């Protein structure tokens, strides 16, 4: 039952041209542009290319994770969520299925950017580092999936699209996924430290440095996950209440 639902949702997402172009194609294209225009090939550039690869993979994953919520809002508008409630699937199973399918659909963005880094830009990492970067970025999307779901359950379809887009861009930029936060003015850098997106990127950046993520990073991410999780549950309950 769960498998049937997850596979249905994954198919629907991967057939969405908008998702494939903006969720997967865009991060790859931005990564290749940022790292190949006016680059001399120095050691410094290599480090920047590595950091950008992780930043763009994180940006792509974040966008895909949040967009899970946009399709939930779309389903709500079509009456599909109500229809699901009168199938034998329990609400918990429906939400779990959405989280699983959402977590699978973030993989293409991560893998596409990492592949572009390794094959096109010649980024060199140890095999364990590749695996750890991919794996941690995958797990780390949890808070963003929950944020997107919360918006999707609470808001109408169109509003969700706009709000999720704003969340995606805002978090990515302020979190330093596009431009390293090291070049931010002091106050913005301080804000950036506390964003889930910056800590999300750090999961990958610390692995690239050959170190495990710091406890602070994990703690901040866990706190955001708990907060967005509570928001998603609250939003789901509210959406179930309204006729």
């Amino acid at each position: 039952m769960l498998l049937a639902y997850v596979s249905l949702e994954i198919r629907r997402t991967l057939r969405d041209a908008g998702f494939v172009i903006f969720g997967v194609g865009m991060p790859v294209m931005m990564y290749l542009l940022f790292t190949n225009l006016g680059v001399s090939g120095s050691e410094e550039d290599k480090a920047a290319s590595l950091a950008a690869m992780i930043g763009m993979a994180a940006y792509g994953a974040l966008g895909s994770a949040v967009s899970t919520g946009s399709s939930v809002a779309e389903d709500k508008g079509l009456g599909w969520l109500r229809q699901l409630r009168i199938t034998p699937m329990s609400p918990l199973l429906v939400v779990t299925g959405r989280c699983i399918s959402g977590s699978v659909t973030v993989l293409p963005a991560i893998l596409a950017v990492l592949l572009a880094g390794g094959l096109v830009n010649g980024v060199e990492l140890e095999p364990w580092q590749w695996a750890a970067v991919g794996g941690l970025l995958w797990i780390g999307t949890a808070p963003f999936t929950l944020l997107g779901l919360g918006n999707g359950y609470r808001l109408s379809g169109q509003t969700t699209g706009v709000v999720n887009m704003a969340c995606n861009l805002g978090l990515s930029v302020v979190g330093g996924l596009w431009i390293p936060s090291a070049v931010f003015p002091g106050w913005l850098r301080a804000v950036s430290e506390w964003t889930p997106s910056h800590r999300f990127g750090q999961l990958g950046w610390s692995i690239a440095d050959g170190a495990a993520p710091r406890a602070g990073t994990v703690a901040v991410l866990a706190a955001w996950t708990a907060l967005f999780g509570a928001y998603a549950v609250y939003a789901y309950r509210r959406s179930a209440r309204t006729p």
Partner: protein
Amino acid sequence: MTTTVSFTRAVKAFGAVRAVDGVDLEIRRGESVALLGRNGAGKSTAISLLLGLNEPDDGEVRLFGGTPHTAVRAGRVGAMLQDGRPIPRVTVRELITFVARTYPSPLPVAEALELAGLTEVAGRRADRLSGGQAQRVRFAVALAGNPELIVLDEPTAALDVEARRAFWDSMRAYAARGNTVLFSTHYLEEADENADRIVVIDRGRVVADDSGERIKRAVGGNLVSFDLAGTPTEGLRQLPGVVSVEVRGDRALLRSADSDATVLALADRGMVRGLTVTAASLEDAFLSLTAQSSSEDAAPAPAADTTVENTTALAEEKV
């Protein structure tokens, strides 16, 4: 026969509006029942209580002797909700296959598609179909799990005549397998042709619950109206064919099962002044049915900006 659906004094209010206001209803296994009512009469709310999408504020709703939730989880219910549209980016077959897989003992997908008349479009995207085909997809979603009870909320709204007939053919085929069917509609003819029993709902209450034949007779075939010009109204109810008499201002409205006989009798008495004969609309039907229920229950007449002088004929027929 076992009881499939039972409402016991069920009440559901949204703010000050009592959308379902003390409904008692029993549906036995294998019955085809129509829930007939105007827009806003409480049909959809009653259905959402039945499916466990809403909880009653008071009273009780049971399905197969348990709660609606239990019956839904056990896969004994399938439903076609109002305003549902097929989801994008899946084919018809994929969608029906998914729904079938959520049920414990579903119909074979090919059979569900066949029953709903979707075999030819099974490979097409569910969101790129005509209105009639989309409606069939929603019907297939409701029956894919092979549920014992199928609930259809205004299944033919926005369908053309052709699509409507095809839809009811499919529905009757499903009912003929021994399944229980409950559907809502605001067309009396549709209820009469496709249900064994019609439950008329008005203002959140059941105002009539009978076979289509009796309901139609109670409603009366035609409405004969004419100017009274001050003549007394006594005796009008005794005229041939007359089922009920209403007076609106200086005009008499006679509901008649035999309008020819009624008009001839009026002519005999020289009462033909500005006479019109029209088919009784559903609006008229509800007026007579609600008047009937109020005379039986001694409750205040619900829609009373008109005077209903005689409802005894209706009441007798009900008994």
